[in-house]
């Protein structure tokens, strides 16, 4: 596997969907239109926590142009079945209640009713005419408030608003701390942040009179949408067809359904297709961001830098319904390091905020922000180079992960060595600049995938899978087919198919597509290749076992001198005469790919008069197993770094005391744009994953993890102040600079109230 020489894998062909995207031809969720289309609008709760006393829809229904109005009464109650179409169990009951509140609204923006009308203006006007009587309840808007004795309860079933507690431990933590020469303990906080995908949630649903539902939507998981619609509506999955459009970003936020079943119910009621598109305000207030967090971490080290003990408590906001990534955070927290004694506890806390959804390496960035900050402090305390300290403690193959299993081949050490030898690490810094380094970890998923490869008469081929293409997976799949068949990448047409056409395929997420669906593609192409060998054997009248395949040709058995090798094109031309069409198929359920590690180096310049900081240089290094298309791997690394930098520097949900989000737009929710960042340098490390025929490991999630720590460590280096709360926005940094008399000492947490 590792010694295989590739012809197409590892090259950088132009993506097949590129021209459509740069010319505006690519059709996204909101581009879908059908004859007789109605437009949907949602009435959302102005309160973060309230009991619904009554809903009167009569005024809305009386408005000319209104074709249908629905409330939760139009959807059958759901008894909390779980849906296993994605990576983790999704609770259909919660998803249904989140989609349309039944008894209580649990966050500002919670959907209460929906309208379909002949125009969007009429639909919005009708939604405004719906009269809802609320019994307003006190909201719970933060972790400390939620778990405080006597706090308002969101759900009867969760005492103190804690939906779940997890714990991982090893060794004797007290003895470990007893052996430590240096102990650092800090408490870290990160705010709720959004994935910030450019394309909002959008769909069109057409419920036919035959009871069949067709949904066009922007999604990471068309099969999840299909099964969720079927489950929520109480119909067979065979009655639902989901056609994924092009997708303008998802990062985990487009796995859960918000609009699709609503549009379906409206369509069924109106007997016309219904289109629903979220505004940016709705995306922020009513889709799934990731958790705000509090992490308390204590780590002990010997004087030689050996980490000997850790104790951690993690609290993650789940939003309105259970299911934060607290468990994943606990599993990631110490994953980069060999620490013999630890106790990690994690709490899933419900609060009156939007229900969180997955966001790139869910749970890991907040946890590693704490770890990498504390490790940086230990390095400073010991006077050690922070990369050397990390190398001394880095997990390697054969070490036991903190969550239990023994690591197979992993590349953290190679990544850190690449960081240490990178020119960036030794480059001089300017005035008011600081440098930080931090590591990241993610598991990398496997799961179910299907692929079909079809050979055309002219020797070109088509590959079809059920994974919406977010990160360049179509061209990567074409490269895999090209590699297996020995035909140019440009002669392979890759497509994303609907749920009636593709075999079941789990979500585009978890860094799994190039790995798991890629394996299905390789197997399907191998199936085609074997059929071609059989056709050649038929033509030559020899046994198939004697026919070899080399460089896109069937090779006749030696000693059979009258026959010449046959190319794919020559064999394809003979398909009608040798048995008909050739279609290769594969379906599989892959184990998790094996962990990925990265390390980022960040140089930050701080304006001491304004508190504004600028990333002046940034390098991302990552073990990806094998880069099938290096440009897209680099793009993933750069994109993850950019999102993580935004998380570190500026992004945050800001709520008022009533739990109403105050900044639901890109003007006030400050994400980095191209002009905010330098060119992000990338270094691809390839430690082959033995589970994949090319060594692919997965790439998309690791790179969002290190920036939080790398930026904070750079800020510490530049200012002498250890910040333990994100974001490091100008007001927070300026306030710290003004209020810290002698930097270089303690950690500092500036609460929002002190920044006004």
């Amino acid at each position, binding site marked *: 596997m590792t010694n295989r020489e590739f012809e197409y894998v590892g090259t950088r062909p132009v993506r097949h969907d590129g021209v459509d995207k740069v010319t505006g031809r690519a059709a996204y969720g909101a581009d879908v239109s059908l004859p007789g289309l109605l437009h949907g609008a949602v009435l959302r709760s102005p309160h973060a926590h309230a009991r619904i006393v009554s809903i009167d829809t009569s005024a809305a229904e009386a408005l000319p142009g209104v074709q249908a109005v629905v409330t939760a009464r139009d959807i059958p109650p759901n008894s909390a079945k779980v849906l296993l179409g994605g*990576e983790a169990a999704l609770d259909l009951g919660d998803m249904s209640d989140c989609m349309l509140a039944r008894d209580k609204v649990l966050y500002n923006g919670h959907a209460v009713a929906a309208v379909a009308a002949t125009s969007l203006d009429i639909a919005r006007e009708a939604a405004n005419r719906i009269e809802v009587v609320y019994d307003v309840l006190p909201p719970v808007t933060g972790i400390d408030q939620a778990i405080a004795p006597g706090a308002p309860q969101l759900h009867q079933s969760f005492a103190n608003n804690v939906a779940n507690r997890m714990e991982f431990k090893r060794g004797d933590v007290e003895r470990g701390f007893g052996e430590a020469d240096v102990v650092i303990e800090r408490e870290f906080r990160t705010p709720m942040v959004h994935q910030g995908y450019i394309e909002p949630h959008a769909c069109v649903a057409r419920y036919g009179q035959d009871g069949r539902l067709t949904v066009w939507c922007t999604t990471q998981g068309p099969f999840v949408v299909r099964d969720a619609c079927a489950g929520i509506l109480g119909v067979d999955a065979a009655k639902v067809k989901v056609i994924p459009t092009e997708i303008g970003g998802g990062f*985990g936020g487009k796995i859960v359904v918000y609009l699709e079943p609503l549009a379906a119910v409206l369509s069924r009621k109106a007997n016309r297709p219904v289109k629903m598109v979220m505004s940016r305000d709705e995306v922020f207030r009513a889709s799934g961001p990731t958790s705000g967090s509090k992490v308390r971490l204590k780590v002990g080290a010997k004087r030689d830098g050996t980490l000997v003990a850790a104790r951690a408590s993690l609290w993650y906001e789940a939003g309105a319904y259970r299911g934060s990534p607290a468990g994943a955070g606990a599993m990631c927290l110490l994953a980069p390091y060999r620490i013999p004694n630890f106790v990690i506890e994690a709490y899933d806390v419900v609060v009156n905020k939007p229900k969180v959804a997955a966001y790139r390496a*869910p749970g890991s960035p907040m946890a590693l922000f704490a770890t990498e900050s504390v490790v940086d402090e230990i390095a400073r305390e010991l006077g050690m180079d922070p990369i050397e300290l990390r190398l001394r403690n880095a997990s390697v193959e054969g070490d036991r992960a903190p969550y*239990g299993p*023994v690591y197979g081949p992993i590349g953290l050490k190679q990544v850190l060595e690449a960081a240490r030898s990178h020119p960036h690490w030794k480059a001089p810094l300017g005035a008011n600049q600081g440098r930080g380094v931090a590591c990241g970890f*993610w598991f990398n998923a496997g799961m179910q995938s299907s692929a079909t490869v079809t050979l055309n008469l002219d020797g070109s081929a088509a590959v079809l899978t059920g994974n919406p293409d977010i990160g360049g997976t179509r061209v990567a799949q074409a490269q895999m087919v090209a590699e297996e068949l020995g035909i140019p990448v440009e002669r392979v047409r890759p497509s994303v198919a609907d749920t009636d056409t593709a075999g079941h395929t789990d979500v585009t*997420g978890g860094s*799994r597509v190039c790995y798991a669906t890629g394996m299905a593609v390789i197997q399907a192409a191998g199936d085609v290749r074997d059929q071609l060998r059989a056709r050649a054997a038929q033509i030559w009248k020899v046994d198939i076992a004697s026919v070899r395949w080399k460089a896109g040709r069937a090779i006749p058995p030696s000693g059979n001198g009258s026959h010449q090798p046959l190319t794919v094109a020559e064999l394809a031309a003979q398909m009608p005469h040798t048995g008909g069409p050739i279609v290769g198929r594969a379906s599989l*359920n892959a*184990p998790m790919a094996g962990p990925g590690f990265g390390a980022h180096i960040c140089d930050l310049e701080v304006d001491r008069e304004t508190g504004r900081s600028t990333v002046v240089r940034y390098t991302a290094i990552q073990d990806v197993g094998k880069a099938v298309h290096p440009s897209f791997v680099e793009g993933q690394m750069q994109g993850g770094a950019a999102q993580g930098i935004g998380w570190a520097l500026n992004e945050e949900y800001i709520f008022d005391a009533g739990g109403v989000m105050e900044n639901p737009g890109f003007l006030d929710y400050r994400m980095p744009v191209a002009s905010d960042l330098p060119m992000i340098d990338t270094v691809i490390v390839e430690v082959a994953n033995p589970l994949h025929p090319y060594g692919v490991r997965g790439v998309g999630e690791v790179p969002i993890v290190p920036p939080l720590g790398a930026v904070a460590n750079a800020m510490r280096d530049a200012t002498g102040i250890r910040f333990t709360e994100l974001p490091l926005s100008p007001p927070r940094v300026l306030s710290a600079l003004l209020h810290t008399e002698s930097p270089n000492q303690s950690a500092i947490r500036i609460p929002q109230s002190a920044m006004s």
Partner: protein
Amino acid sequence: MAVVHFPSGWTEHTGGIEEITIDAPRVDELMAALAQRFPGLIAILEQSAVAIDGQVYHHARYQTLRQDSEVHLLPAISGG
């Protein structure tokens, strides 16, 4: 006999046991044995990921186990 490890947070359902040996040819039989012995774990087991000798599966029911397999039960992990 496969050695099964629980996250320490599950010990409230296992009477404090963090590790147990079970003779089972596959994960299916192993899970059945665990469910019988620790009824409080049933709902959790249904949504768990399973690591067998270092390899993590989301759906492992019919994976075979060696006599000396090391099995870790893990919270389900979602990705973005």
